[in-house]
């Protein structure tokens, strides 16, 4: 097949930019096609109350924004994540750091933490409702729990992987404790810490929603469950859009932080493992 050379691998000679454009176009086509199919299928092949339709979802999104309902519920969920996520991440990172620094601490508490980790953590959500009531604090608790472990494990893994020679060198050069911690150890572990933060973002949202599903009077999870209960499928999708939006925004912020903090890394050195 002598002519298959020219037709077989068209990307090889193509400039990178043109290829990127091509990829984007195809992707847009796939997404557009999906929505189109959804719109056509709804009411013709599948009952609208099962899958709604893009146009219905859009209308109800506008309605819910105008009535202020969406804002109210989003704000509650945002508060739960906004409190639980940073607290969970920071305490997870701090615990991972302490375990990495103190062998004794790690020896005493590692089995305990592993045992707690073995419990499916969302199963603890009802318990949080019992302890902290049906307000936002029980959801903050669930978000905290889910975020804490992912951040803890990633940070601790980073501490264990860290090249001890950097610490030795810094100490030989007379680095103070503060300098050792913030100019050497945390930067060295930062790829792992950021990986933990990024993997925990969707779990923080899951935590809040699961809590709201179980018992709540407000929040996006509550809104979704309520809408599904009365077959307002379009509203369910509106809730899902809000959640997607939250995750995307948080990911974007994390990406910005990562790009700043890890600017010393070259592309190939990025940590590949998942926590």
């Amino acid at each position, binding site marked *: 097949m002598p002519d298959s050379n020219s037709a077989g691998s068209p990307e090889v000679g193509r400039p990178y930019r043109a290829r990127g454009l091509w990829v984007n176009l195809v992707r847009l086509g796939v997404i557009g096609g999906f929505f189109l199919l959804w719109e056509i299928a709804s009411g013709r092949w599948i009952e609208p109350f099962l899958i709604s339709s893009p146009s219905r979802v859009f209308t109800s999104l506008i309605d819910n924004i105008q009535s202020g309902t969406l804002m109210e519920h989003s704000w509650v969920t945002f508060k739960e994540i906004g409190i639980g996520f940073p607290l969970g991440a920071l305490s997870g990172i701090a615990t991972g750091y302490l375990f990495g620094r103190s062998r004794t601490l790690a020896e005493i508490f590692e089995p305990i933490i592993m045992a707690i980790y073995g419990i499916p953590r969302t199963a603890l959500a009802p318990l949080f409702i019992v302890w902290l009531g049906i307000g936002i604090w029980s959801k903050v608790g669930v978000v905290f729990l889910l975020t804490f472990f992912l951040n803890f494990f990633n940070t601790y893994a980073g501490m264990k992987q860290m*090249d001890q*020679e*950097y610490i*030795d*060198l*810094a*100490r*030989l*050069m*007379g*680095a103070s404790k503060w300098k050792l911690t913030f*100019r*050497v150890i945390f*930067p*060295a572990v*930062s790829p792992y810490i950021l990986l933990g933060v990024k993997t925990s973002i969707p779990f923080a949202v899951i935590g809040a929603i699961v809590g709201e599903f179980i018992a709540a009077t407000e929040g996006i999870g509550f809104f979704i469950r309520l809408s599904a209960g009365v077959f307002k499928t379009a509203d369910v999708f509106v809730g899902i859009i809000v959640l997607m939006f939250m995750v995307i925004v948080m990911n974007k912020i994390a990406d910005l932080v990562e790009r700043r903090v890890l*600017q*010393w*890394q*070259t592309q190939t*050195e990025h940590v590949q493992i998942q926590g």
Partner: protein
Amino acid sequence: MKQPAPESGSEPIAAAAHRPATSRNNVVIEVERVSKTFETPRQGKVVALEDITIDVSYGEFVTVVGPSGCGKSTLLRMIAGLTPLSAGKILYQGEPVRGLNTKVGYVPQESKLFPWLTLEENVGFGLDPRRYSRKEREDRTHNFIKLAGLEGFEKHYPSQLSGGMAKRASIIRALVYEPAVILMDEPFGPLDAQTRMILQDELLKIWEQKRQTIVFVTHDLVEAVALADRVAIVTHRPGRIKDILKVPMDRPRNIFEIHRQKGFDEAYGRLWNIFRHELKIRLDQGQSLDSQTLSR
């Protein structure tokens, strides 16, 4: 095994300033009958060093040569307090080394620049803000970067430097805060011949100005002779000090034409004789030879 001070003329000022009144005979480091045995779970015990004794005087440039795996790095790490001893003792300024010896600077075998700091942040890392003002820190850092020919790369990260540049940076990182003693572990090991000579030359120039005490590990016999006041020869496993040779060559030395300098051939010849003897023993024992030992 006490050796007289090197014939470097009058006592250098910088070195004299570091010397406490109580210290005897100019000696800054005393390694006395030190042994090191590594215990590994799989391979059992490895005797890395056995019965090592050597003194280093203030302002002296001592090189340590020996085949790969003979324990050179281990010796440096023990002087720095990074590795505990199995037997014997190491005194620094008359005091036993306990824990990390922060008085010494250490240039590890790999450059080990902090990858998350820029070149200038790396170089200035050891400058204590309690001792130097901000201005002083900046000036010093800048001067040494200039000295090492790294100008224009101040804001670069180590991943953006070549291996040789990183090496130079790791050397000036130890020089910049002027520790009384600097331990260097094959600092020019992986470099090409040209870069190597240039750096040897730079190092000697800096040292001639500051006269810090340097213990310099290498497996290159020419380098060992060219730089040193004294050369300590360590044998293959178990690592023992076979001999300590004085190198009575004038300073300043011209690294680029070191072969022509008076005294070089003689010193190199003596060193090679000892090495040849070692080599023969290892050949007779049927041990495998490191390629580097043969290529000399």
